[in-house]
């Protein structure tokens, strides 16, 4: 079982991202579970969401304490919340930022593999959100697919089209672009 933890801010769509990732994996025949940190969501406040992906039935109903993957929708959260808490050794961290991955160090984590991609600019290019509040939840999923190899980009794009009510194509294209951006 693989456990993914999303970190974002209220309004960025972290919960939706956890859901879309689950759908993508489900469409590839996996068992899935997706849920938000149970709280009162308020715009701007830090938000956590979770996805579990497994070949077997997922029975656990508890938060994720030892994630395999961290997805960071907002780089300003680094240092603001205990981001890497419980991250497994060699865990993956995907960050939405223009900066190179070398720029980041996570002393609490054991051999983290960091990938960065400027999702905000890509989201804006496709008209997703506004300059002050780009909606990056769909864009970053392309990078997640590439960095983790958990699901194909096609499944991500299909899941986006299934779950996002408007600008389906633009959202899917943004994901594709981050997928191609990462090497």
């Amino acid at each position, binding site marked *: 079982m693989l456990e993914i933890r999303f970190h974002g801010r209220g309004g960025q769509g972290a919960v939706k991202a956890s859901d879309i990732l689950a*759908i993508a994996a489900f469409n590839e025949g996996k068992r*899935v579970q*997706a849920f*938000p940190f*149970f709280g009162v969501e308020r715009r701007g406040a830090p938000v956590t969401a979770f996805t579990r992906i497994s070949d077997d039935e997922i*029975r656990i*109903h*508890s*938060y994720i304490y030892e994630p395999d993957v961290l997805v960071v929708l907002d780089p300003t959260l680094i240092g603001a919340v205990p981001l890497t808490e419980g991250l497994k050794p060699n865990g993956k961290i995907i960050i939405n930022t223009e900066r190179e991955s070398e720029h980041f160090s996570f002393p609490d984590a054991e051999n983290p593999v960091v990938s960065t991609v400027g999702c905000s600019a890509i989201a804006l290019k496709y008209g997703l959100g506004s300059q002050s509040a780009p909606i990056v939840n769909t864009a970053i999923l392309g990078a997640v697919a590439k960095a983790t190899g958990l699901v194909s980009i096609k499944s991500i794009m299909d899941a986006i089209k299934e779950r996002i009510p408007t600008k389906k194509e633009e959202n899917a294209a943004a994901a594709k672009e981050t997928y191609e951006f990462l090497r």
Partner: protein
Amino acid sequence: MKKVLTGNFATAYGAKAARVNVIAAYPITPQTTIVEMLSEIVADGELDASFVKVESEHSALAACIGAQSAGSRTFTATSAQGLALMHELIHWAARARLPIVLANVNRAMGPGWSIWADATDSIAQRDTGWMQLYCENNQEVYDTILMSYKIGEHADILLPALVNLDAFFLSHTSQVVDLYDQKTIDQFLPPYNPKIKLDVNHPRSFGALTSPEHYYEFSYKIQNAQEKAKEIIRKVGKEFGEMFGREYDLTESYRCEDAEFILVNYGTLAGTVKDAVDRMREKGIAVGSLKIRYFRPFPSEEIQSVLKNVKAVGVIDRAISYGHEGPFFTEVRSNLYGSKASLYGFIAGLGGRDVSIMDIESMVDYMKKEQPSHLIWIGVKK
């Protein structure tokens, strides 16, 4: 057809699949998305039903009672404060022998305001005559709603069902749910057709003043129906398994056969306990899990047969009866009267506090080392 659905959407799809005629409900966190989804389903014409958007939970159940008495299959959903507000009518629906299905998203009672998981709200409805059960996952929620109509509408039962799902752990958690073909569902659950109802061609009064000469027999008959329900629940659970591939019973035991320690649990904790059991088994500890689905009728026979020869039994309650102990613990203990098993009553996860695999391991650890106790608080900060 398999879909990834939250527990709340699974609930709404369950009501839809049961082809309910009248829905009356009032929004409350974390139940709200059930009513939103059902509004959509009804508005889109996917379900030919009346959705009464009442001004309170009290009126929600009252409207269901009125409609069900007049021959409709009805559905409502609520949570915590809403369920408490319904309480008077919870009694009413059972004594009127109306097989209403109520989905309750288990949530803690205020104050302080809490929207998180806790079964104290539904446990407080214990003595109302309702069948009361707890779901482990979203599939079970969907399946249970369908089965609850079938069981409740059985001529020997005629009792409403309180289907409980944990706040957020199910209500807002997406999981894969297998939605069945409507034709097969219709075979499983034919339209509701009560023998006696409000009918202008056969004018009767319902619920009139009832003297001590008769009230007692009505109570006796409710108890008989509850007892009989155990048999019908097993039968319908089997039939459901034959038709849809998932069989259900009053309880579900997991790796109990050779277990020295058994953890009794309900709701979403059941899943987490199973994972914990596997982990402990790998370490060589003989642990099993007994999930209780039905709190009413209470599965005494199953409890006795599974637990009587075990070394130690721990009951995990996400609820508390203040001044005493965990409500499930009380039931289990009374059913194990005379047994040599050491009994441990654990309180865990009140008000939505997460219960992790580590927490569950700590319970078994406690059972190995400490004397039996009826009240052990897991994770309380002292």
